[in-house]
């Protein structure tokens, strides 16, 4: 679906991360699903930017975007009431299992996991939210996470608060109580997590440069179970153990 939606609300969550809210009735999105966001009408940037659903509740769609480079920088200048062109929701996403789980977010990886947390919360599935960022300022959505999660842990690499990475934090946890882990963050984090070989299934939300975002171009690929899968169409959520990271 192609949609031109008006920005109902724009919120700055941190100095380089902002949220855009849209009214979008009639979709039934799954966590992990994302929209391909048109940056502007210019041919530079040429491709859309994949942005996960961070919240969907009462027909209100929230996208949270961290400024990384050219495209997200231009998007950050959009204002309320301006139109944004979106394609999607794309991706298979996941249907959350009814099992006690850990949501493990690194950096902007918090966005799709926040939507997953929302689902858990609505369905009364207990979960712990473990969330790490470089500095304390970069921790966003804290109140909402605290409100929904049975337990929430925030770690940072520098500055105040509990020190460390989410990977080191999960390593030190007693996991006997949990049945499943969902993780989203930079690839380096996913690789470190994979090396822990946790004794429970881990579902990873993966990233890559996307072309179409909808299975047409074969531009995204992830080596999974010995064959290439589409991040956009077959994922972006995959069982971590079976991924072979190549780049």
């Amino acid at each position: 679906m192609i949609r031109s939606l008006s920005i109902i609300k724009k919120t700055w969550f941190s100095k380089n991360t902002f949220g855009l809210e849209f009214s979008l009735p009639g979709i039934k999105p799954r966590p992990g699903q994302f929209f391909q966001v048109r940056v502007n009408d210019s041919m530079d940037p040429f491709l859309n930017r994949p942005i996960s659903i961070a919240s969907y509740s009462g027909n209100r769609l929230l996208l949270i975007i961290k400024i990384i480079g050219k495209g997200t920088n231009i998007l950050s200048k959009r204002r309320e009431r301006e139109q944004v062109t979106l394609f999607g929701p794309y991706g298979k996403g996941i249907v959350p299992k009814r099992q006690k789980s850990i949501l493990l977010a690194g950096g902007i990886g918090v966005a799709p996991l926040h939507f997953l947390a929302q689902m858990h919360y609505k369905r009364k599935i207990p979960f712990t939210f473990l969330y790490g960022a470089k500095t304390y300022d970069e921790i966003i959505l804290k109140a909402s996470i605290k409100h929904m999660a049975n337990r929430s842990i925030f770690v940072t690499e520098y500055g105040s608060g509990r020190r460390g990475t989410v990977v080191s934090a999960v390593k030190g946890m007693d996991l006997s109580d949990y049945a499943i882990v969902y993780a989203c963050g930079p690839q380096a984090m996913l690789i470190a997590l994979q090396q822990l070989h946790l004794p429970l299934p881990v579902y990873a939300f993966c990233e890559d440069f996307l072309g179409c975002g909808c299975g047409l171009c074969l531009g995204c690929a992830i080596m999974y179970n010995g064959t290439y899968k589409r991040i956009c169409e077959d994922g972006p959520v995959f069982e971590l153990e079976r991924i072979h990271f190549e780049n």
Partner: protein
Amino acid sequence: MKIKLFGTHLKNRVLLASGVFGFGLKFKRVTNSVGAIFTKGITAQPRKGNPPPRIYETSSGMINWVGLENPGVEYFCTNIIPQLKKLKTRIFVNIAGFTMDEYEHSVERIGDTVDGFELNISCPNVKEGGIAFGQNAKMASMVVARARKKTRLPLIVKLTPNFCDPLVIAKACVEAGADGISLINTVYATAYDIKKRKPLITGGLSGPAIKPFALYCVNRVRNVGVPIIGMGGIVSGQDAYEFLLAGASAVAVGSVVLRDPYAPLRIIKELKKFIYQETKHAR
């Protein structure tokens, strides 16, 4: 906008370029609206394609290095063609290969179950074969001649603008029996990973960045004597019309569908207006 091309009737002059719409089995509203679809490149053997990253964005364009990921001609014939038959559009199968035998084999194997073939002798993303045939008039002509013997269906040859004159190659192909020429395939391109200080991706450049170059190439080949399918950077009906002015009989849209899978519908509509204007003008 109906046209007759290669003895077949097409709904309109806007076709889907190879590789950007898979086999046309998704977004069927789009597939069924275009004049024809060129499938993703098919090889004799299945290919898993290249490791990621396969795509890299550039100013007004993109580089792809997909590497001809496809299930191979056997699977294609058994599992895909039956589905393609249900589409309300013309199907041209893009055939890639690493040896001349492979091209010949695939064309023969597919037989007359589709509407035609596009011989891809211009893919920059594989090491052997492919583009080497497209850069050499003699080899190009051999590939075409051998495929020609195996099919009576329309045989289009897709050319590269990379380090060879498409006119020279096009002439050789037409002499060897090609019914049409499509161009341009992607342009050689490299992007660097400045952190790792080495190439991030080496592949083919496409998108609006290459449009002026593509128009030059189409115009250069225009008098070769067979219909030309023009492509390279088309994002609007005006762009498409420019390719018709340059000598193309029809156009194919590629990268723009990554930006908007519904773009072909818009382009068809916009192009109609230009053609209408022109015919009005001619009256």
